[in-house]
C-alpha cells in the first residue's frame, strides 16, 4: 500500500497535539492520533473512506506533509478550504476506530498511611490490535477538588504492565502491549495524593507502534484521562 498524501495537526507543548491524516492508494484515509486535538484519553488509528471530491481536494494539495497550525487561523482562503476538507475527513475517520486504546483513571480514596490506590485502565477498540508502550517517567497523576487542580505526582515505578481481570499480562512496561479490540486491562499502583482530592486523572505518555501500514516507527503519544471521582 502506497501513501499518497499526509496532513498533520500539531501544537507546541504543553498541549503537544499530534494528529496525522494519511491517504493511501487503496482509497482509504487513516487518522493517527498520538495526542488528540480534544486532549482526550484515546490514541491510535482511525479509518475512513473519504468522498471522491474530498479525496481529490486533498491529493491536489500534494504529498506533503502539510502541517496545520491549530493556534492560528488559516493564512488565506485556499488554506481554509483545504483545512476544512482535512478536518471533515478526520471527523469521519474518528467514527471508525481501527486500532485504538482509550485510557481511564480510577482512584479509590486515601488509606490511613496517606497513600491513594489509583488504577490506570485501558480498553482496545477497532478491527486490529493497538500496540504501545507506556513511559512512566513522562506520565503523571493529577488531583483535583471540585474541578480545580490541587496537585500532581509522578507516576511511580511500575513493576509490570497492563493486566486483564483474569491476571493475564498484556504488556506495556518495557514490553509492547498488543491490545486486541475489546480487550481491557489495568495497572494498579499507589501514590501520595497532594492536597484535598475528590477526583483523579492521569496523563499517560509513551510510544505508539504500527499506527500506519507504512510506518513501523514507534511515535511518542500523550493522552489525558477524564477526571473521575475518587471512590470512597
Amino acid at each position, binding site marked *: 500500500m502506497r501513501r499518497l498524501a499526509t496532513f498533520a*495537526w500539531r*501544537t*507546541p*507543548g*504543553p*498541549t503537544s*497535539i499530534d494528529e496525522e491524516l494519511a491517504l493511501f492508494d487503496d482509497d482509504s484515509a487513516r487518522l493517527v492520533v498520538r495526542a488528540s*486535538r*480534544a*486532549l482526550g484519553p484515546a490514541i491510535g488509528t482511525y479509518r475512513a473512506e473519504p468522498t471522491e471530491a474530498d479525496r481529490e481536494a486533498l491529493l491536489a494539495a500534494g504529498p506533503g*506533509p502539510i502541517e496545520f*497550525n*491549530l*493556534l*492560528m*487561523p*488559516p493564512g488565506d482562503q485556499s488554506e481554509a478550504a483545504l*483545512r476544512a476538507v482535512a*478536518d471533515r475527513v478526520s471527523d469521519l475517520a474518528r467514527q471508525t476506530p481501527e486500532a485504538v486504546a482509550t485510557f481511564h483513571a*480510577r482512584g479509590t480514596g486515601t488509606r490511613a498511611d496517606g497513600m491513594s490506590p489509583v*488504577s490506570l*485502565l485501558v*480498553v482496545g477498540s477497532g478491527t486490529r490490535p493497538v500496540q504501545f*508502550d507506556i513511559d512512566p*517517567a*513522562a506520565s*503523571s497523576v*493529577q488531583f*483535583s477538588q471540585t474541578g480545580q*487542580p490541587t*496537585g*500532581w*505526582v*509522578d507516576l511511580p515505578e511500575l*513493576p*509490570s504492565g*497492563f*493486566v486483564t*481481570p*483474569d*491476571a*493475564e*499480562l498484556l504488556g506495556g512496561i*518495557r*514490553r*509492547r502491549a498488543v491490545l486486541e479490540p475489546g480487550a*481491557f486491562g*489495568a*495497572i*494498579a499502583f499507589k501514590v*501520595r495524593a*497532594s*492536597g484535598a482530592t475528590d477526583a483523579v486523572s492521569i496523563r499517560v*505518555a509513551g*510510544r505508539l507502534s504500527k499506527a500506519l501500514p507504512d510506518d513501523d516507527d*514507534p511515535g*511518542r503519544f*500523550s493522552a*489525558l484521562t477524564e*477526571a473521575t471521582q475518587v471512590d470512597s
Partner: protein
Amino acid sequence: MPDFENAEHAHGDAVAVRSEVTTRAEPTGSPNAAVSVQLARAPIGADPRGAQRRRLSSRQVIALQLAVGNRTVARVVRPIQRVAVADPHMTETLYNKETKGGKARASKYALDPKYEMTRSGDAVTVTVRIKFLGQSRNAVDPKSPGAPAGTPELGTLLDDPTEIPEGDERRKWAKETADAAVTIWNGHLSFVGSAFNPLTFRKAPERLKVTFMSQPVYGLNEQADNQVIIHPQSTVAGSPGQPIDAGNWYMNKGNYGGDDKVIAAHEYGHLIGIPDEYSQSNSQLNALLHQAAPATAASAHEALDRSTVELMTLASLRAPLVRRLKATLPKITKAFRAQEPLVKQKMTAAAQASIIAGDVLNILRGRLTLSTAAQMPARLVEGIAIETASKYNEVLQAGLGVDAGFSAAALGQQIQSTYASALWDAQEIGKVVAVQGLGEVSIDISSGVRKSGISGGRMGAAAGRLARSTVGLPKVAPDAALAGQIAALPATWSATGSLLETSITAAGFTEQMRSILESSDAAAGAPPPPGAVPPRPATEAEVFARAYRLISNAANGAATQLITNLVDASISPVVAASIADLQAKITAQVNRLMTTPPAGVAALEPADPNMKAVVAAMKARLAADEKATKGTGRDPLGAGVKAPNQDVTYSYQGLMGSSESKALRADQFKPIVDHFNKDLVTIFESRFKPEVK
C-alpha cells in the same frame, strides 16, 4: 494569537509581597504554649518522595529561637507563604498583518503578567485570578473607504468593559475553559533545590511540585491579576479586528482550528509571562541572530550549521541502522533463546523460594468471594485460595511464561524497539542546541532527510554500508559490531553475580505476583466494556478453576515480565554505548569537513569514506536551503519574495514555541522560579531551579 518573538522583560522585577493568609508562626508566648509547626524543609531521613514532614515541638522551636533568634525562626517555620507577583510590562512585535502592498506589518502587543504564588510545605501553587468581562472591539479598518474619522486601529477595545451578567453563558464557558487550560499545564514543572537542616546540620535535596490554577472573577471592581474579555457566540474570532490573544477569548473560535481549551492553555501561558516563538528557515534564523546579537551572530550561525548537519546525518542514518538490526535479529534471538533452559531453571527456583505474600492471598481471597455464589462457605473459599496459591511454582515448571518471554517474536520486537527508540531519543536530545547570543533553538528535520538513508542513490548506498559496519552482519558471530555485542550478552548470564542472578530472584518474583494480581483486581473492579462481563462462577469446581487460572496467569506473567526486565537491563547499556560512539564519529567528520582548514586535513586520521559521503550529502542539502533563501530576511512571504521548501526548520525554543519536540524547556520558567527564590525560600535553602518533564 500574539507572536512574542521580540518579547522583552524590562530591567528589574516588581514584586509586591502580600500579607499572608495564614499568620506566620512566631512563638513568642509561654514556653508551655502548644506550639507545633512544620519545618519548612523535610528533615534528613524523611521520604524525599513526599512523606509527612516532621513537626517541631514547642521545645524544639524555643531551642531554635535561642540558637538563632526569633526572626530567623519565623523565617524557617512559615506554614504558608504567599506572594503577589507582577512582572514588568512586556511588549512584543508581531508580523501578523498584511498591508495592501502585500507586506507584513508589525504590530505591538502588550502583556502584563500577574499572578499569585503560594507555598505550603513542599507544594507550590501559581494562581492567576482572571477577571472575565465583556467589551467589544473595533472591526472597522480605519484605512477602508468610508471609515469615520478617528476610527481606531483594528481590534482596539471600545468603550469601557462591562460585567458579564450572572447566568450569562459566557461565565460558564470562561470558567470551564480556564479550568481545562490549567489542567494542561499541570504535571510538568518542579522546583528542585536543597535545604540545610539546622537540627541535624545536614543538607537534603528538595523537589517541589508546582501546580497552576486559575480563579475566575466577574465583578468590575473585584481584585484580579489579569483581565480577559469574553467575546460572545455572535462575534467570530479571526474576523477583522478579532484575533484571539491573551486578553481576548472567543466562544466562537471561527476558523481557529484548535480546541477552546488548547487555545486557552496557550493564552494562560502569556498570563504568567511566557511568550510565543516561531519556526523559521535557516536564513530567517540567521536574520534573527543578527538582530539579537550582531557581534556573535556569524560564529553562532556556523556552530548552528554544524549541529544541524550532525543531526541531519544521525536522522538520515536511523532508518538504515534499524533496518540493518532487523536483519540481524535471527542471530541475536538465537543467542538469547539458547539460554532459555538456564533461565527457566533459575525462574523455577525463584518461584519455589518465593513466598505467598499475605496481600497476594488477600487479593485472591477477595476475588473468589466476590465471584462466588452466596451459598459457598467462606472456609471453602479460603481453602481454595490457599491450595491454589501454593501451586503456582508448579505452573512455572510448564514454562509458559518463560517461553513467552523467550519467543523469537517478542525478543526481536523488544530489541528492535529498544534500538529504534534510543536512536529517536538521541535525535530528540540532540535537536535542541544552545545558540550563542540567542538561547536554545530546536532543529526540526524533514521526513525527506530522514528517509534519505534508504532512498537509494550514492548517499543511500553509503548510509547502507555505514549501517552494516555499525550494526554488523546477519550471520557472522562473534562480531565486534552492535549485533555481535548484543548476541554475546546472554553467554554472560551463567557467571556468578550476573544480571540473571540479580534479576531473577524470589523477592522479584513475589513482587511481580503481587503487582499483577493487584492490577488484575483493579481491572476486575472497573466497569468492563460492553459484552465483556465474565460469567459469575457458582460451583466449587468453577471457583477452583478460576483461582487456578488467576494464579497460573499471574505466575506466567511474572516470569514474562522478569525476562523482559532482564533483556532490557542487558541490552540497554550496549545500545547506548553504540549510539554514543556513532555520534562521536559523526561529530568528528562534521568538524573535519566544516572547521578544519584544507591545509590541516592531511594531518588528520583518514576519514571513513561512507561517513564522509553521508556528512557531505547532508552539508550540501543544508547549503542548498541557505542559498535558496539567502538575504530574504525575517519575513520572505510578506516581502513578496519566494520561500522555497526547506529541509530543516528552526524554532527559537520555548514552552510555547512551535516545535515537534514534546519537551518543555525549564528556562522559560526562570522568571517564576526567580520570584520564588526571592520571596518564598527559607534561609536554610539553596536557590531552586525549574525542572520540567
